[in-house]
């Protein structure tokens, strides 16, 4: 049904990959929030959010990214967003998220960004 949403977690070395699937709205945003909170609590601040299967996002979903980004960056990590379909990208762009977040093509590219950051720093 059209308000189903799932978030699943995979660990690749020190990078946490959160895979979003379905509809991210005010009803389902708490599930996503909980999943990121878990990573932060565990001190895992290199987070990739894979949006390949995310078919819808409203401001409630965007709000989750906003709540955590500062804390995660201060801890030396980042949230990299990847695999965003055009319809969802449009929503990111309406509010200017593309200039505040690192949005890349896929998981390997997101992982590469973290590697770069580690070398550079």
């Amino acid at each position: 049904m059209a308000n189903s949403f799932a978030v699943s977690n995979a660990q690749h070395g020190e990078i946490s990959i959160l895979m979003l699937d379905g509809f991210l709205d005010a009803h389902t945003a708490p599930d996503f929030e909980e999943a990121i909170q878990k990573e932060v609590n565990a001190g895992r601040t290199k987070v990739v959010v894979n949006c390949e299967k995310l078919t819808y996002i409203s401001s409630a979903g965007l709000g989750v990214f906003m709540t955590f980004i500062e804390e995660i960056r201060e801890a030396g990590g980042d949230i990299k967003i990847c695999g965003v379909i055009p319809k969802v990208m449009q929503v990111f762009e309406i509010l200017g998220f593309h200039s505040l977040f690192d949005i890349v093509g896929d998981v390997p590219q997101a992982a590469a960004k973290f590697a770069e950051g580690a070398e550079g720093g």
Partner: protein
Amino acid sequence: MVSSFEKKFVLHLPSSTENLALIRDFVSKIGAQAGLEQGQVSMIELAVDEACANVIEHAYGSDQTKEVIVRARLNEDTIEIQVEDTGKGFDPGTIEQKELTKLIAERRSGGLGMRMMQMVMDEVQYSIKPGERNELRMIKRLKRS
């Protein structure tokens, strides 16, 4: 497909975020039936989702026994959406539209919904009578596919 008379649709439903999917579907079906571009339908769906999420969370403070009303009027050139509640209301003029970077610095997740509606729709207008009848009227000028 375009008819000369106005088409009116109304949806009443319990104030719960679990109904947002139903509300988006209602808008999406009306839009598709009117022959609107899929991209435009998606944007109207988004605005209505934001409006209803605000009613559910703010006007009614997540009291699921309350009712949200969504009206859609489809004309030749516009779709007009009206979202109604009898909740606590607010003064939209006092809601500061902060910079995104400021919100981030303050670790606030809120304050995006009204901005989204404004970006997406051509007109957004509140009429507030707390506890009696609060209305949000949004208009979008149509592009047909």
